[in-house]
């Protein structure tokens, strides 16, 4: 007796692509490394948002974190650049082709130490880039030295204690002009995914600081960037919900306790307030909340600041609609008459 086994149709997104189409190479990071979890969420977010893989550029600096673009979305062009300088590479790439989406992955060392100058200017420019810091408080790749995001008093495995204050990359980003700033935790699947999806819908600089424990050098008792510490001390500012523009958006909002942001593409970022006074469109509120929680020894997560109005860097430059990179010669080399005109004026 013959039985026909019908394979169920694989699940696909709105482009007809499977989640497999968003995968990358096999990770070479340590098992349990927070960075791997983040790569997984990136894959989910890109898949669920239906981003065409060929329309995305992945950029990174140097570090364990900066390696991770190799582990998701193989079908996208990727540029693993030099330590701390990914912002400039991303800027150049996006100027060359502003029609692309761009996602940058950095580490806390890559961003807050060697790259802090470029980071600051990236935020100022509001370049349309999703900038992710995979933040473990240490230099993973060089085997566990403190980074500038390590909290005062946090201890290395070797017993060394950090006695310098941490740089809060989110507070910096808010002050400097990034238009979407949030913090999450690699272990918080739901929050991170929602945040990443909203990031994809946003059009200026998205700065996400994602706490991502380094299981090899910084996941022990006393480390403020460990799984345990995060589970005990994470305080979410709001519950992040995200509704892409292509889904049914007629949802009932829980009036009074939610804040709804309409993203550039018509998607909705819905923040269910846990804090009564929290308003993600105020820089002052955002920085205040960050500092207050920090003083209490807590780590605030959530989306702290969103501005969908500020023009992005590529808007400010008033570029032609097509990518500069592939403009035809007729549009980039002025005519013979122009040269003659200039020469005559120089005579």
């Amino acid at each position: 007796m013959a039985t026909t086994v019908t394979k169920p149709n694989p699940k696909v997104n709105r482009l007809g692509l499977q989640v497999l189409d968003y995968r990358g190479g096999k990770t070479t990071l340590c098992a349990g490394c927070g960075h791997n979890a983040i790569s997984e969420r990136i894959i989910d977010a890109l898949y669920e948002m239906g981003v065409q893989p060929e329309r995305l550029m992945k950029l990174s600096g140097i570090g364990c974190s900066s390696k991770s673009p190799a582990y998701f979305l193989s079908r996208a062009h990727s540029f693993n650049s030099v330590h701390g300088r990914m912002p400039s590479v991303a800027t150049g790439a996006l100027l060359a082709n502003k029609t692309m989406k761009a996602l940058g992955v950095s580490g806390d060392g890559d961003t807050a130490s060697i790259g802090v100058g470029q980071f600051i200017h990236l935020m100022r420019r509001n370049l349309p880039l999703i900038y992710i810091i995979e933040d473990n408080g240490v230099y993973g790749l060089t085997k566990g030295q403190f980074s500038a995001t390590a909290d005062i008093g946090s201890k290395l495995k070797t017993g060394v204690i950090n006695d310098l204050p941490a740089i809060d990359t989110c507070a910096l980003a808010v002050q400097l002009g990034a238009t979407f700033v949030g913090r999450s935790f690699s272990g918080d699947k739901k929050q991170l995914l929602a945040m990443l999806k909203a990031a994809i819908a946003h059009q200026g600089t998205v700065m996400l600081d994602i706490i991502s424990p380094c299981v090899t050098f910084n996941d022990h008792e006393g480390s403020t960037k460990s799984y345990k510490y995060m589970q005990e001390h994470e305080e979410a500012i709001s519950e992040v919900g995200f509704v892409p523009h292509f889904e049914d958006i007629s949802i009932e909002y829980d009036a009074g306790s939610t804040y709804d942001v309409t993203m550039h593409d018509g998607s909705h970022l819905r923040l269910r307030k846990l804090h009564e006074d929290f308003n993600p469109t105020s820089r002052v509120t955002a920085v205040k909340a960050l500092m207050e929680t920090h003083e209490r020894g807590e780590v605030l997560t959530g989306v702290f600041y969103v501005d969908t109005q500020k023009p992005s860097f590529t808007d400010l430059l008033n570029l032609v609609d097509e990518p500069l990179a592939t403009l035809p010669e007729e549009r980039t080399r002025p005519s013979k008459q122009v040269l003659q005109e200039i020469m005559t004026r120089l005579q």
Partner: protein
Amino acid sequence: MATGDVALGSAGVETSQPTPGTKEDISGATRKPVINDFNIQVATVNGSGSQSANSVLLRSIFGMGIPVSGKNLFPSNIAGLPTWFTIRASKHGYVARKKEIDVLVAMNAETAKEDILSLPSGAAAIYEDSQNLRQYRDDVVCYPVPFDKLTAAVCPEAKLRKLVKNMIYVGVVAKLISLDMKAVETALRRQFAKKQKAADLNWAAIEAGYNYASESLTKQDPFVLERMHATDGKIIIDGNAAAALGAMFAGVTVVTWYPITPSSSVVEQLIDYLKKYRVEPDGKATFAVVQAEDELAAVGMVLGAGWAGARSMTATSGPGISLMAEFTGLGYFAEIPGVIFDIQRVGPSTGLPTRTAQADLLSIAYLSHGDTKHVMLLPGSVRECFEFAQAAFDLAEHLQTPVFVLSDLDLGMNNWMSEPFEYPKKPLNRGKVLTSEDLTRLGEFARYKDVDGDAIPYRTLPGTDHPQASYFTRGSGHNEKALYTERPEDYQNLMERLNRKFETARTLVPAPVVLQTGKSKVGLIAFGTTDFAVTESRDQLKKEYGVETDYLRIRAFPFTHEVHDFVSSHDRVYVIEQNRDAQMLSLLKLDLPAEDAVRLRSVRHFNGLPIDARSVTDELILQEEI
């Protein structure tokens, strides 16, 4: 010290101090006129607005059809420090710096004494009459002029007087050297094209100076101009503007920079041109310019843009080059195009930021750690600034590597005569880029594979709509498929291919310019702005010493075979350059077989002032033991 650096005590140069008993008869009656062959120097302070006056002088001489060149020697300062502008009229067309000043306009009280002391015997000096410079030199023709009084008479507005005073000296000089006043007026109206009132006021000042000189000064020096037709159809432009034009006509789309003297005016002038000629009817730009936070970011943006397929460039000078080292190595290793202009100034460190040198050769040739080497183009004229800017973009995209254009302060910031630039004959060479149709046709793509045997692989651009288009760019070890590797043979293969690619570059870069009779045993090698002095020096050697020399001007690194041939066919080859360490000679030595390397000798000039012919001639005579 004025720019007539006789005070530097270079060997063999007559001293400028008046020597008792050897006084020349400086009365005009007995001296033969010196026509269209002399050097005017205007000594001022920076910020006094003398630039317009100086360009009017330069342009007027040019307008009389006489070959002319100008050099601005300025301090690294905004206002109040001594500045010298020299204008050389040369019927022979020599444009190198000439040390001896023939006509001095001493407008800076602070340096006036030094300025007049540095003049050769028989020179002329124009100065504010209250200065009484005559006391220092009785072998110099002195023309005291009551500048302040004359200025006050033509310029009632006190705050403009400082500026207008400059035009008075234009008038005085015009009369003394027989400048055609029509040419002066044309030059002035051109300078103040859109400012009728300013033009009128300045013209009045020029006339006042001219009239004063006619009435109150008696011509006693021999320096005069006569109309020629050697500048017909020529243009005047600075090297940085020429480079900017070259970049625009090369279709540059992404420009990044961090301001630094003497390179800033490349991008500043480029911005002006782009705004004028590269904005489409709907107001949108076909270019992006970013003032970056530093040179690391500037070059990072260049490589990001080059990677994504744009024609991208930055312009900098020595300190910026040092900062760009790491990224440059990435560009070389990951094979990313980009164009970097280095307008060289004097190093090391901050050095002399407003003085000229050719001293970045070695650091750029091998910029960045590991086995790295770069293509360098070495323009020797404003026209080559224009042409090599274009060649640089073609080469960068064709070879997929950063390409450097090494100009210098002298070429970049001074005005030079030139034939008008020619419109590019060839279409842009965008290099080996595969489209999605190509990928479908080929069925496979390996980013770093040498498919054509020239060691230049194919690339794809982000956004290419094909599932096989993407690849992973990295500065770490990679194989032909751009996958991470630490395998010894993968690394070695890659490094050897990059070496072969450099050999391909050797066949593509601009060949040298060779002037040889085939009879001389002595060869000269120079590059960039040293060419001006060498050209004049060769004439001096021939005329004064009967020595014929062959000459090769290098225009690029890696060296093409002509360079090798030239060295091997001469007994002695002098490499003449503007740095202390004989950097070009060192590069040549690394490239030449040992039996040829021993033929090389060195002539170096490194005091921050542009090299002059006399220094070259004297040094060659010394070394040749003639």
